[in-house]
């Protein structure tokens, strides 16, 4: 969308995750489906075949199955920062449901919003940020302006008269 129509935020990391050790931010995931409705057949297929591998791979995530009569299949993910996100799994094959479960596992639970910067740093500068007086020689601090010494063109180069004088002096 156009930038100013949508909210924008900086890149965030929950509880400095990864600095100490990495903690999977997905706390709980609930698979909601209907036992009989054909719409949930993919979800049922996923539960039969792929769910166990998912649970084995992620012991830190609690998995709930919630059969609901005549309701569309969907995933509800609850994250460690307390946010809850649901996603409808209508017309999605078991492979794709696996993909979206994996996606929920990789997320940090922060609301997905346009990023202002694609990096975040607490200490942008190690040598000290540039400032106007960093590379000025300290003579100018005590100089009394306006001072012809600083304003004259430093490298003038030889003019015609210089050549003439040079030749003249060489001859003598």
């Amino acid at each position, binding site marked *: *969308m156009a930038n100013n129509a949508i909210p924008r935020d900086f890149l965030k*990391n929950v509880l400095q995750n990864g600095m100490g050790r990495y903690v999977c931010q997905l706390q709980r995931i609930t698979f909601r489906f209907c036992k009989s409705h054909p719409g949930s057949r993919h979800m049922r297929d996923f539960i039969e075949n792929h769910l166990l591998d998912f649970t084995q791979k992620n012991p830190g995530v609690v998995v709930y199955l919630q059969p609901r009569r005549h309701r569309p299949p969907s995933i509800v993910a609850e994250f460690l920062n307390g946010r809850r996100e649901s996603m409808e799994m209508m017309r999605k094959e078991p492979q794709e449901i696996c993909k979206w479960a994996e996606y929920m596992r*990789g997320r940090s639970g922060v609301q997905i919003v*346009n990023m202002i910067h694609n990096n975040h740093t607490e*200490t942008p500068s*190690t040598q000290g940020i540039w400032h106007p007086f960093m590379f000025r020689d300290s003579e100018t601090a005590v100089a009394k302006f306006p001072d012809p010494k600083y304003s004259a063109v430093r*490298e003038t180069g030889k003019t015609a008269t210089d050549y003439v004088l040079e030749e003249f002096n060489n001859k003598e």
Partner: protein
Amino acid sequence: MAAKTCTKNVMNFIMRSPKFYTSIKLKELLLCRQLYFGCLVRPCLGGSSLHSLPGNRFSSAVVSSPFPSLVSCRTKSTRKADIQISMNLGVCGIEKLEDFTSLSDKSLEDEVTGQINESLEQGNTGRLYAVVYIRGIQHKVTAGDLIVVKYDFPPNVGDRLRLEKVLAVGGKDFSMIGQPLLSRNFVRVDATVVEKTLSHNRVWFVYQKRRSFKKFHLYREIFTVLAINSIQVARLPEQNEEIENQSTQKLE
């Protein structure tokens, strides 16, 4: 193909002024400078003529013209920056020839590596930053940073990575710049994959009035968030030490 045209371009450039490039010594070059500028380059703000403008920093005592090869392959944006900023701030060309002997003398090199090793031993290198190259994009990172790697990036959430392509490392006392990369024996940048998500919904909308031409897509890009754990620099090889019998590197 590009190399070919570029070299041809260079050749043409030179061929147009055969007189100039017959046997040349520094002194002679000086005298026929006018000839060089006069016949070769129109008195517009072209690259090399930039140096011949009166009042600029170039003195006739110095070989004023950079290589013609440089002149011919200078892009428009470079020329614009030259004119808009460098010339306006009066830093056209080089004032006087710097004594470049220090570039090749070995003793200076050893002295610098000695200083770096000494500050490494004392452990007061302080915070280090590194310029790393990931998937075609360069990032300046320090410890405790977050960077985003766009598009599909194989490592999975929770993996610990070692970023291999380090272009430069620096701290408050020294900076090491690779040509183009620093060897992995001396620099180690550790990161962990913290998050792998999709971006927000981005719009791609193309429309032409009265042409019934309208295309609209909503898409989400995949991106990965890396947290930089630490940047470490190992002892540099002194002149006397041979690199082969380098003791087991603590970074391996």
